[in-house]
Structures are given as C-alpha cells and as structure tokens.
C-alpha cells in the first residue's frame, strides 16, 4: 500500500483544492502575441543587464539579458522579433522593473509545441558530464519554476563544503487551483525523469525522492510505471506525502520525505539535500539535451471567473491580458487577478503585467472565493485564539510578529524570529479576525532589509 504511511510536517492548513477546473485539461500551446515584455529580474539574485538595443532584431532563443554575478540567470527571447523599447514595466513581485519590449509577427512565430515524446526510457544521462550539465543549465537561464525563482545552477553546482547526497523532486503542488505541475507529470513523465537523472548526476546526488501529494494518484502511478521501465527504482523512488498546504514548501517537503529539519535560517545543502521542482526538471532536460533556453512554460489559467480555464504552454513575457483574452477573457464576477495560486500568489491591478519564469498560474477569483471579510478588508481585533500558532509550519508566533511590525518594533519582531517565516500565509488563512498576518510579516522583512541598507 503506497498510501499507508502519510508523510507530512506539523501544522499547515487544508484550503479548498479547486483543482477540478483544470486538472483534466491537457497542455495547450498558445499563439504568439504581438508584444512581449521581458523583465530583467525574473529570479532571486543580481538583475540582468540588457544585451540588446532598441530596434535590434532578435532571434528565438537569443540571450537579451545577462549578469556577470554568480547568483543570476540570463534571459532569452521567446520569439523572432524586434526590440521595440527598453523601459519600465509592471512586475508582479517587485512592482516595477526594467524590461525589454519585443515586437513579434505572429505569422512568423508559430506557437511552440512541447515535445516530451523526444524522451523515453532509453535516455542515458551518462552521455553528459556534470560540468556540461551545469553549464547548459546556466546558459539556458533556468530558475526554480515552483515560484521562488532561485537560479538552478547555483542549487545544483557541487559545493565541496556542503556535499549533496539526496535530490528531492517537488511534485506536491500544494497550492489550491494550480495544476500545471500535475499535467506535466502526466504528459511529460519521461522528460521530467530525464531532467531528474541529469540533475542528480550534476549535483552528485546518489538518492532521489519524488514527493507527490496523495491527491494525485495518477501522477504517482505515471512515475512508478516509468521508473520500473527504465530500471532506476533503486536510486529514484516516489514518496507519497499527505495532501496539506504548504506541503510543497522546500523545508516542509524535506521534513516529510526524509524526516530531517533544515536549520532555521539555513539552506537544504547544509543537510546534504537539494530540492527541485518537476517543471524545473523538465526544463533541465530540454536545456541539456537540446540546448533550448527557458523561453516557454506551462501556466494554469483558472478560477470561476475565467471563461476557458486550462493549462497553457505560454511564451514568457506574454502579458496577463493577452493570456486572459486567449482564455475567453474575464467575466463580470472577477474580483482578484492573482499571479500564482491563491495562497502565495501576487494580486495585480495592472493587466499588462508580463508572465515571468516563476509564474505557474494565473488565478482569477470571484468575491465568494476571496470570502467577504477578506474582500472588504475588515480586520478586527486579535482575540488571541492561537490558531495562527497552531498552523504555522515553522512553529512561529505569527500574531506576535505581526503586532511587533505594526508598531515598527523590528527588534521585537526578530525576537519572535521574523526572518524564519516562509510566508506561506497559513496564519492569515485561519485568522478569525482576518488580520493580514503574512502581509505584516512580509512588510516587516522589507522594513528590515531597508534598515540594513540604510545602516550600510
């Protein structure tokens, strides 16, 4: 029985999954839009500098932004087109940033169709050296596609000070609504597996565990069948974990799969672990085997206020409004447009905001989905019920941190381990007073960063 042992972490919440909108929609290519906007920050680390000039023609896959810093990832053009401008553009996470505006003729740019059939059980990662794999990953501009956007090369690069022995593949997709990872696990199983084996080879990991929540038995089956056919069951195993949010959080997944705890403020390599998302693995396979840079990704467009929800293969840089138009547009009931899922995504007001490498979903919520007190932003007094403490997966005291931040007591906020927060939002989700606890904590982190900068 694979579902007998429910591996998980302590805390967490059970929001409505709402995956039924899109879980049975196959991945569909999207026609190339006339304009693409590529922000020069799509990852954690140093921003890229533009490599192109206004009016310059660019080819599909040509780098248009790059940085010399180690922790960074280059950005490539998803189309054959012309650079129209280099100017500020809306960015879902950091507000505004410099971006390259590309103009493309749709007729010259047929929609790119994913080719998972090019991978099968005969794939041999041994034909690539670890150095080749790392370089290909860096050149392709790969970043963590689960949402954080940490440059993949930096994660995988072997570090003698912190040797990695276990690679954990994150196929949890614990965010409600989102199904992009689920669909690629079903449709691109061999491609993901090829990426996993390449990544394990490059990072020097002997054991691989694929963590999948128990609400995705089809994905579990797909991987187990594939693993038995390519005879790598010994090194690579599927681990079924409990369906709970935030099961797909890096620290939570490691806890569930290995029973080990990453130290507070530490990183997984400290305990010899590297975690990669399934979508990143699929991109690794393409990057290493076909030298294809990261220019497209699967995005789930979902929610009750969407006419045609689905999983779409979208060029990075496409604007939210173009994608929404392709899906039949917004209905009248739309109350919130969120880049990402409802728990950790970013609500946007400007629909010209482009999709980035880290954006796995476009969720459009209605007023009922948002719930009335949250929609009206009625925050009432904290009644000290302790629900936020009970659900915090990191064992923090969210109400104390939020109140400290509210009164600009950053010293007090840090006493309650402000920086240890993973910003999963479980505390805000359960709060009966509807206090934006996670919002206050994020503000606190920003204030702290600003203070640090000011003090030099």
């Amino acid at each position, binding site marked *: 029985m694979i579902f007998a042992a429910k591996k998980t972490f302590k805390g967490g919440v059970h929001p409505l999954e709402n995956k039924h909108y899109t879980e049975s929609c196959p991945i569909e290519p999207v026609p190339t839009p006339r304009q693409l906007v590529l922000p020069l920050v799509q990852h954690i680390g140093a921003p890229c500098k533009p490599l192109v000039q206004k009016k310059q023609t660019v080819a599909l896959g040509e780098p248009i932004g790059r940085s010399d810093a180690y922790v960074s990832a280059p950005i490539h053009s998803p189309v054959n087109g012309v650079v129209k401008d280099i100017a500020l553009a809306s960015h879902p996470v950091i507000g505004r940033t410099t971006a390259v505006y590309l103009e493309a003729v749709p007729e010259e740019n047929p929609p790119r169709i994913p080719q998972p059939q090019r991978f099968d059980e005969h794939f041999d990662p041994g034909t690539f050296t670890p150095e080749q794999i790392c370089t290909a990953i860096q050149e392709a501009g790969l970043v963590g596609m689960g949402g954080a956007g940490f440059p993949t090369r930096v994660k995988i690069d072997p570090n003698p000070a912190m040797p990695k022995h276990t690679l954990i593949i994150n196929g949890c997709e614990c965010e409600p609504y989102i199904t992009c990872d689920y669909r690629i696990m079903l449709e691109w199983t061999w491609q993901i597996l090829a990426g996993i084996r390449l990544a394990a080879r490059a990072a020097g990991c002997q054991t691989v565990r694929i963590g999948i929540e128990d609400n995705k038995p089809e994905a579990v089956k797909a991987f187990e069948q594939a693993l038995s056919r390519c005879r790598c069951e010994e090194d690579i195993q599927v681990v079924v974990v409990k369906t709970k949010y935030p099961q797909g959080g890096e620290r939570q997944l490691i806890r569930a799969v290995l029973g080990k705890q990453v130290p507070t403020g530490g990183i997984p390599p400290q305990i010899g672990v590297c975690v990669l998302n399934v979508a990143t693995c699929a991109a690794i396979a393409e990057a290493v085997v076909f030298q294809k840079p990261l220019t497209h990704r699967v995005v789930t467009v979902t929610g009750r206020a969407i006419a045609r929800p689905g999983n779409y293969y979208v060029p990075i840089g496409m604007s939210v409004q173009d994608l929404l138009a392709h899906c039949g547009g917004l209905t009248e009931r739309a109350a919130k447009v969120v880049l990402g899922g409802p728990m950790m995504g970013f609500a946007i007001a400007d629909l010209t905001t482009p999709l980035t490498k880290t954006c796995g979903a476009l969720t459009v919520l209605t007023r009922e989905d948002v719930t009335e007190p949250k929609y009206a932003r009625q925050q009432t007094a904290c009644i000290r019920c*302790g629900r936020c403490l009970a659900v915090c997966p990191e064992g923090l005291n969210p109400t104390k941190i939020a109140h400290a931040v509210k009164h600009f007591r950053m010293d007090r906020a840090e006493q309650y381990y402000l920086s240890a927060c993973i910003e999963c939002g479980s505390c805000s989700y359960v709060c009966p007073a509807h206090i934006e606890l996670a919002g206050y904590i994020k503000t606190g982190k920003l204030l702290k960063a600003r203070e640090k900068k000011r003090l030099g």
Partner: protein
Amino acid sequence: MFSQIIVSPAPHTSQNLTTRRLMADVLIGLVPAMVASAVFFRFRAVLVIAVCVAACLLSEWICNRLRRKPNSLGDLSAAVTGVILAMSLPPAVPLSVAVIGSVFAIVIVKMLFGGLGNNVFNPAMAARAFLTASFGAAMTTWTVPATIDSAMPTVQASNVEAVTQATPLAWSKMALKGQATPEQVHAQLKDVFWGQVGGCIGETSAAALLLGGLYLLVRKTITCHIPLAVLLSAGIFAAVGRLLKPDVFVRPDFHLFGGGLMLGAFFIATDPVTAPLSVRGKWLFGIGVGLLIMLIRVVGEYPEGVMYAVLIMNAFTPLIDRLCHTAPVGGKPHV
C-alpha cells in the same frame, strides 16, 4: 474596465470563520445549560440572563459611542460575557446587582482596557468577583431548584427555610470539616450531574455543560487542551485526596460535576483573550486553573474556587506566554 478588481497581500482566500462565528458558537454551546437553568429555576433564570445580556450590550454600545469607535456589538462578545456572567450568578440575585455586574464587566474590565482582545481578565469573572465583594449576601443565597419537592434528604443543612439550601460544594466542605460523611454527600451525585441542586444559574447541570462543551470541541471553537488540563488536574488532585483521606474527601467525580468546574473548564477558562496563545501555555494555564480550584475548595475558606482560579491564572497569562516562547522548528538561528 475592471474597477472591482482589488489588490491585497497573499493569501487571497480565507477559512470561512469570523470572530462573530466563534462567539455565536459559544452562545450555541451555552444553550443546553440555559435550557437546564430554565428548567430548574424557571422564569427567574431566564430573566437574569436576559437582563445581564441587555445590560452588557447597552454598556458596550454606550462605550463605543463615547469613544467615537465603530459599533462592536456585531462580534457578539458582549452577549457571551452577559450570558456567562448570568450563569455564574445565584438565581435569586437582585436584578440591580446583575446590572451593576454587567456594567462593571463591560465598562471597567473590557472597554477601559481597550475592548475585545485587550482585556487582561475575564470580564464575567472579574465582575463576579466584584459582586461577591460588594454584595456578599445576595451572592450566596441559593434557591432550591423548582423541580425539587422536598429538601435534600441526607444532609441536614442549617437553613430550615424551604427556599434556600446549601450547594453540593458546601456539603463537601462540611465533609472536610467532619460535619458530614462523604458517603452522605455522594448520595447527591446523580442530582449533581443532572443539575437538580442549588447553585448558580448555569453551573448546576454538568450534563448540559458537557453537551455544550462537546459542541464547542466538535466545532473546533475551542481546543481540547484547556478543558482537559483543568479536568485532569482537578480530578487527579481530588483522587489523591480521596486516596489519602477517604473519611473526609469526597469522590473526584463529585468535585468535577459539582459547582462551576464544568462551566469554568469549557466556557470560562477557554476564553481565548485571557488565556495563553500556545498549546504548551494552554496546558500550563489549565493545570493552574484546575489546581487552584481544588486548593480553594479544599484549603480555602470558600466552598467554590473557579472564579478566583481563573482570575489568578489570567494574571499569569502574559508570563506563561513568555515562558512558552519557543524556538522555530528548525531550532534557534545562528546569528
């Protein structure tokens, strides 16, 4: 074009739970006890409850008006305070005393401290303590439930009038002082459980309180930690006493079902505002309440100790919160 689109921090959805819903659940949980009180003390109980709730709501409304704050009656916390205060008053309490208690609870204990979420002490218990100090006689006159035909057969209480009578805990006190045997007291256990005894309006029927408490647990309005800690610590204390001195100590179940212990364990000590935040803190708080109740009952001069036990532990809540300030799951960060 989409002017109704809003932007706010993640998460963008929430559990369908509000403070108002929590307080409404507490009120629903109190319904069995209110019905029981209406059965045992008839119209008088209903009247006292209604007066207390009305006085609490009105006081809160006036306070908000005076402080130019938005009306907060909708969160129902004032109604909960009113019901709990009424339940902890004797049925024969003069209505003026009930009103004074309600005003004290809301104005002094709750609103002057900053309203819901900021009060240090449980408003209903602090008001009851105030009334006990100010109107001693009115607060200790116990009417016999209307459903009883004659006085309790086994205990010859000093009061001969048919209208008043000693409470079960007063009997257990007498047993401690050698004025009655525990066995005589145990004869009332059945009546104590169902509520056919003298006592405060809402505390007599342990069965009704248990039913309501169970409802709160099932609805997850409260967690099991505080009630369990109170019941276990008080029960173990009573059991140890019974084992050591069976000739003066009554059985632990008599202590658990008698007096305000059930009301206290499920409805008063669990008031989230005045209890600690963390699970560990809740255990400590509950154990403290349970032990203090038993200490007051056994060693103290009063027959009942729920009120003072809760108030004393309320004062310890900030200290318990500080004591239970633990490191994150990943351990203390190395700075």
